[in-house]
């Protein structure tokens, strides 16, 4: 009897062992899904920037498979409107490419963006000098970090200048002189709307010897000064110094229809790419001045910055991405000089070691550094898009005789004052 019991016991324990071995016992099978922290990132830019940034995001996700980056991009036009909507609705991205001007605009108290200083353990701030970090400081809060220093610089098609036996312009008058010597189907300069704005403002600042907009966002120009801006635009379009803002086509640089262009250092490479492809030599040249006048009206600014949304639910991951975008070898290689010469020393070291510190952007950077003492830091309000749009409308109205110069300038003075007051949050 005892032996039978022992046998039954042995058989039962064998069966239990078998069941547990093959997992047939009554237990819940759990298969964990791959859980990722999703953060968002937004930027503006051209296709080149879109493509390398997406490539860099892939690299970041490979390095950090626990993080997924959703991204949003568009061209500059429209990006600020989108940013307005996102910021106002508290749905801004975790990491954002922002304009230098936006720090004052969206974060007047310094609390409009996440204080990056609190995330210093994830971001290598030692790559930046105190001065560079200060570009992103607002009321004691580190709101953003700069990618590179930028300025509007002139670039000319040396091949065509040689062909037409011309010298590169040094003064504003030189532009008109050159325009009179080139074929009628060509223009001295081609540039997008914002560069036209910067050009006209620089001209008027030099001519009248006063600053356009102060660092704290106050309009320093009067109607007469604004008349000079509008007048310069109309004269330049009439004289074929440049096409009307609405007729500008970037591809005309490559085709040799524009003998030169005004562009941010960060854009110089992409603007000249087709021209270089077509056998032209493009060079960075001097800033224009009124004959014998001072080099005023030309400004440097941090060429876009990275900020972290104040509402981010994943500050650590956002900081990791921000660090990657500014300081990593992968991003440095992807980005090259597209945003200008990086301020991050680690990114700069990578570019130097890779032999990537060359080309038109580097040339322009050196030009900027040559005039380092004369080129001032731009007022953050100088690039406010609604000012530019208003100016653009006025230019057309004057050029097509819908309004007189005086009328348009007077209206613009009022409009500029209103916009700046709104931008200052008053």
């Amino acid at each position: 009897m005892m032996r039978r019991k022992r046998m039954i016991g042995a058989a039962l324990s064998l069966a239990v062992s078998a069941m547990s071995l093959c997992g047939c016992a009554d237990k819940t099978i759990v298969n964990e899904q791959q859980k990722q922290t999703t953060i968002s990132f937004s930027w503006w830019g051209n296709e080149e920037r879109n493509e390398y940034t997406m490539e860099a995001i892939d690299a970041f996700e490979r390095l950090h498979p626990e993080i997924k980056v959703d991204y949003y991009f568009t061209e500059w036009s429209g990006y600020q409107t989108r940013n307005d909507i996102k910021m106002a609705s508290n749905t801004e991205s975790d990491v954002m490419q922002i304009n230098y001007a936006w720090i004052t605009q969206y974060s007047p108290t310094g609390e409009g963006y996440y204080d990056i200083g609190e995330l210093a353990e994830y971001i290598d701030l030692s790559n930046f000098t105190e001065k560079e970090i200060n570009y992103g400081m607002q009321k004691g809060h580190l709101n953003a970090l700069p990618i590179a220093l930028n300025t509007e610089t002139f670039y000319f098609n040396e091949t065509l200048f040689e062909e037409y036996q011309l010298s590169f312009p040094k003064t504003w008058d030189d532009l008109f002189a050159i325009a009179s010597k080139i074929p009628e189907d060509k223009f001295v300069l081609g540039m997008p709307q914002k560069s036209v704005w910067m050009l006209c403002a620089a001209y008027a600042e030099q001519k009248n010897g006063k600053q356009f907009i102060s660092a704290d966002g106050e309009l320093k120009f009067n109607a007469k000064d604004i008349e000079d801006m509008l007048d310069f635009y109309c004269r330049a379009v009439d004289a074929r110094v440049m096409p009307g803002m609405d007729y500008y086509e970037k591809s005309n640089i490559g085709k040799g229809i524009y003998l030169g262009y005004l562009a941010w250092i960060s854009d110089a490479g992409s603007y000249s790419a087709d021209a270089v492809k077509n056998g032209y030599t493009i060079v960075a040249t001097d800033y224009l001045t009124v004959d014998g006048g001072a080099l005023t009206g030309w400004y440097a600014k941090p060429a876009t910055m990275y900020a972290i949304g104040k509402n981010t639910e994943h500050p650590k991951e956002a900081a990791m991405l921000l660090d990657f975008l500014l300081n990593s070898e992968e991003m440095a290689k992807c980005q090259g000089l597209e945003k200008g010469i990086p301020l991050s020393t680690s990114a700069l070291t990578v570019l130097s070691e890779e032999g990537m510190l060359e080309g038109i952007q580097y040339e322009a950077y050196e030009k900027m550094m040559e005039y380092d003492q004369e080129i001032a830091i731009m007022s953050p309000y100088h690039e406010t898009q609604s000012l530019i749009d208003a100016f653009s409308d006025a230019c057309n109205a004057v050029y097509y005789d819908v309004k007189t110069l005086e009328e348009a300038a007077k209206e613009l003075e009022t409009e500029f004052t209103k916009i700046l007051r709104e931008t200052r949050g008053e």
Partner: protein
Amino acid sequence: MEKEKRVLKATKSEEEKKFGRLKRSIIMGYALIVMIGAAAISFVCIHLSQKAFQKEVGDLVSELSIQMSINLDSYLENMENFNTLVFSEKTNYTYDATNNNLDEYTALETEKAIKNSLYSLCIMDNYVDYFIVYSNEHTVGKYSNGTRDLFGGKIYENAKEYASNPRTQDGWFTGFQGDYKRIYYVKRVNENALLVTSIYTSELSSNFEHAGNFPEMKIRVTDSDDTILYSATKEEIGTKLQADLLTIMDGKENANFISDEYLIAVTTGMNDWHVICTLPSSALGKEMQRIAMATITIAILAVVVCILFSVLFVMKMTNPMQNIVEDLDKKASIDALTGIYNKKTFEEKVAKRIASLQDGKLIFILFDVDNFKGVNDNLGHAYGDKVLSDVGKIMRAKFREKDVLGRLGGDEFAVLLHLSSFSEIPLEEFINERCSALCSDFRNYYTGDQKDYKISISMGVSIYGEHGADFDSLYKSADRALYGAKQAGKDTYRLYKRNDGSAEGGAKS
């Protein structure tokens, strides 16, 4: 009693060996059958369960492919719906840039308004292009350099044919001049204008996110020509789907396939685009291995259990049988009265000892009870049997375990002794000592109610090799010597002497 057991034990070991061999054979045979059976069942089970597992995974992949196709269609439909918002502003679809009747400023302002309208519509999404192109190739809106370069500034001319849906006058395309970087949607706005929007192909990835439990799974979108429009592996985009997959799919548009190499599911959605999910069968290897291991483990345990039960069963069945056989064997070989071998068994044992002799001497002692007839006649057969039984006891007590003892018939007994060549006792001394001791033991033996009847024995001795080479010849020689002992007055022993046919032996004490 101990000696009897020893004799029986010696006899039993042979039988045990036989039975052990039998048991082992039965168990081994049974185990072999169980193992073969278990292996066959395991093979079938593994095969069937793996097939079932593959089918289940195949169904899941199929579900995934359907869901992703729905995602993709939904994504594209949303874009189409979104693009109809262009018609929310009348100017957007009534303006015609080819109409020269408008003055330049009005045209510029109108285009600016259209441009602002388009920008305000597309700012929330990652559009690469979002513009209206007119039949004179004039564009208004967000017109990327990549698209401009791709179409060489002639996008209206090249894209108009894709707005081919007869009702909605729209359509999708990619791969223009081998460029699959962007996917384009075109919709006719008026007879001289097309709305063109584009997204990066990589944007489609949001439709194909999954739990990632099978990292080897590949999700691709192909067009009706089997060109890959989307893949997480960017290098594949724009190339033809690999031939082995096409062979397996055999032109089917909504199906799943389980081959030795792949699990494939294809679902066809909008634009005749196929969402194809492929999973290498090897990706299931780990799971299949687990199934196989579980099945094999169960089979091994089942085999072990079966063998254990078979051992118990065989033991249970064979032990009584072994006892019966051993009992029968004992009865057949042991003389019941004396507890020593009967004549037949004694002869066999002697023959075996002779055959296995390697050294030393074999001594054959034959003896009978003197006056045994008198015991029977005077005391009766019951006393006679008791005397014989006591002879057996005395013999078992007197001789060693290795000595062979037998009753050859009536009162005739025999012993086969072995004297090792290493023994220091001379042969004759050894014989003398043993025979004298035996005679002496019987000399003190009395029987009858009052122990009044004295018993003695007479012995004849022959030596193997000298007096005989087998049982018969040894027996004959010993018998002649026994005769000599009888002639010499009984209660003594005689060693066989070949030369004169007489024997020599010990004297009565």
